[in-house]
């Protein structure tokens, strides 16, 4: 063997990641790794695990440090140059409020979940990959908080994000998603977050949406977004390796994995409805519609992926066709919910202006003019007449996804979709067949869901009236909630704008 020849990447990775673990002797391995068998997954050979990134710990630290240096240079430059005054419109800040309250806390949950998987999976290669991802996820939370903290100096609805995340009605949608994943076994967690969320769906959040941040002048958010996404590429690879590894290890794993793929695809689809609304309604300057993003990142990319996984017998997720059909409706239906409940939301809402309506008509030729434009025009007219529409009844929630029951029947956008089932003498309600199936497979788990509306009615959320509940949310009423028009955010934005015009003249 030559003493001078440099090792290749494959060999370096082998030497630095293998043979570092050992068979325990003081305690049986099953007691050291107590959680990796109860889910029914069978692993014959953990050493068959392949990490195609072949990233060793020394390279990991080097690359991550470089990413951080670049990101913080941008964050500093943004703050020094008062970048907040250069965004496209004051409305834009609302996407950051929803992002920080609804998504950043889930980065933290992902951090904890991968730390658990990085401890409890028996294979050393898998543990290393999960541990790196755990550190990445913590980095994502930190960089998001640091970036958005600058906006917190100027805009409302940001400062109470961890408190709100645990309490506010719509934030129970992402919270319950991650609570579900984190209370599952380590293999289901890896499929839920590693595969279904990271591989199938994360592109929809981070690519077109972050490109949207760039387009709207938010230099610091696009930078944390793409910095996080560069880790995501590694996470996606982990997700796809997990699924291939499980399917190659034993044929009995296939039905279990298929069930998890079906479940987490549908849960992810429901969760991403919030992103659909951010893209179609909340970005003042738009990059692409939700429908276009869905076609690129699910229909095209997901199609190629499942064609590939077909060789293991894995099929497209159940109800993928319904989700694709819903891509023409979901952003509009969600925006309608938030518009009606703007008094209870910690970000601002508005009716689209004429130019925005035309963009929606162009992007949604099959649905917008027929089903949604007339409603927006009616609500805009009511606003003008001083009769702005608020829904003062608390909505019924889906037991599984926890979203208000506002979605429509597949194939009939004029009828609300209701499903129900009985469990131990109680009736449970669902927004869709997808959510009902998930409940019926694990009724003991989902019958215990913490549903915000039920909890309000049971007196667990600060009191019996809306003001009591908003106080319990730590909501600054009149600043955090209600329409953008008339808000302190709008007043500040208009002042900045007037100052710019005054100085230019």
């Amino acid at each position, binding site marked *: 063997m030559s003493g001078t020849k440099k090792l*290749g*990447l*494959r060999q370096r990775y082998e030497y630095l990641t293998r043979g570092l673990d050992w068979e325990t002797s003081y305690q049986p391995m099953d007691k050291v790794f107590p959680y990796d068998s109860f889910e029914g997954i069978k692993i014959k050979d953990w050493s068959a695990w392949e990490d*195609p*990134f*072949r*990233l060793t710990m020394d*390279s990991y630290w080097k*690359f991550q440090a*470089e*990413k951080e240096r*670049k990101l913080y240079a941008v964050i500093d430059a943004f703050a020094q140059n008062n970048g907040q005054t250069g965004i496209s419109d004051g409305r834009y800040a609302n996407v950051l409020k929803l992002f920080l309250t609804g998504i950043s806390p889930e980065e933290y949950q992902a951090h904890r979940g991968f730390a658990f998987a990085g401890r409890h999976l028996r294979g050393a290669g898998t543990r290393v990959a999960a541990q790196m991802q755990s550190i990445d996820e913590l980095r994502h939370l930190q960089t998001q908080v640091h970036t958005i903290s600058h906006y917190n100096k100027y805009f409302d609805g940001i400062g109470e994000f961890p408190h709100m995340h645990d309490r506010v009605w719509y934030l129970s949608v992402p919270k319950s998603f991650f609570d579900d994943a984190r209370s599952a076994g380590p293999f289901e967690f890896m499929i839920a977050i590693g595969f279904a969320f990271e591989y199938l769906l994360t*592109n929809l959040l*981070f*690519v*077109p949406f*972050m*490109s*949207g*941040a*760039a*387009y709207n002048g938010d230099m610091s958010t*696009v930078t944390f977004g*793409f910095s996080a*996404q*560069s880790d*995501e*590429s*590694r996470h*996606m*690879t982990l997700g*796809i390796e997990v699924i291939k590894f499980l399917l190659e290890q034993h044929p009995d794993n296939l039905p279990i994995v298929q069930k998890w793929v079906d479940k987490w695809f549908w849960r992810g689809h429901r969760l991403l409805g919030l992103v659909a609304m951010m893209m179609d309604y909340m970005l003042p300057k738009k*990059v*692409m519609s939700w429908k276009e993003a869905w076609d*690129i990142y699910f229909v*095209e*990319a997901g*199609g*190629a*992926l499942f*064609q*590939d996984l077909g*060789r293991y017998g894995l099929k497209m997720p159940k109800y993928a066709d319904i989700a694709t059909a819903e891509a023409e409706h979901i952003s509009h239906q969600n925006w309608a919910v938030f518009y009606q409940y703007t008094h209870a939301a910690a970000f601002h809402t508005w009716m689209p202006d004429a130019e925005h309506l035309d963009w929606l008509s162009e992007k949604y030729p099959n649905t917008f003019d027929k089903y949604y434009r007339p409603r927006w025009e009616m609500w805009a007219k009511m606003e003008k007449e001083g009769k702005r529409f608020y829904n003062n009844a608390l909505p019924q929630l889906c037991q599984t996804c926890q979203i208000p029951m506002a979605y429509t029947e597949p194939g009939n956008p004029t009828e609300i979709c209701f499903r129900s089932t009985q469990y131990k003498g109680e009736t449970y309600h669902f927004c869709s067949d997808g959510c009902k199936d998930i409940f019926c497979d694990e009724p003991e788990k989902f019958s215990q869901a913490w549903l915000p509306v039920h909890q309000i009615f049971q007196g667990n959320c600060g009191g019996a009236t809306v003001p009591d509940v908003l106080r319990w949310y730590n909501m600054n009423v009149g600043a955090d909630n209600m329409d953008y028009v008339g808000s302190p955010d709008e007043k500040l934005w208009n002042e900045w704008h007037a100052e710019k015009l005054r100085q230019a003249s």
Partner: protein
Amino acid sequence: MAQIASITLVHTDEARPIIEAIMADNPGVRVLNMPGAVKLDCDGTITVKRASVEERIGRSWDPQEIQLVLVSMAGNLDEDDDHFTLSWRH
């Protein structure tokens, strides 16, 4: 349906030579320009060659450095000392 192998990179000065190398080495590559990012698609397989990038930047380049500018990808990854390849072929 054609299986599309894809790489998305940030649109920065650092990524530009990599984007150029991909366009030179992958005939038929399709380019989707988004604000701040570029998505490059090829049927079946797409590759980044170390030599092509080094030729453009005039220094040695480790394919793992792509992680500094990578936004997303689709396909099975094969990474080695001389290339970074995404492919649906087996």
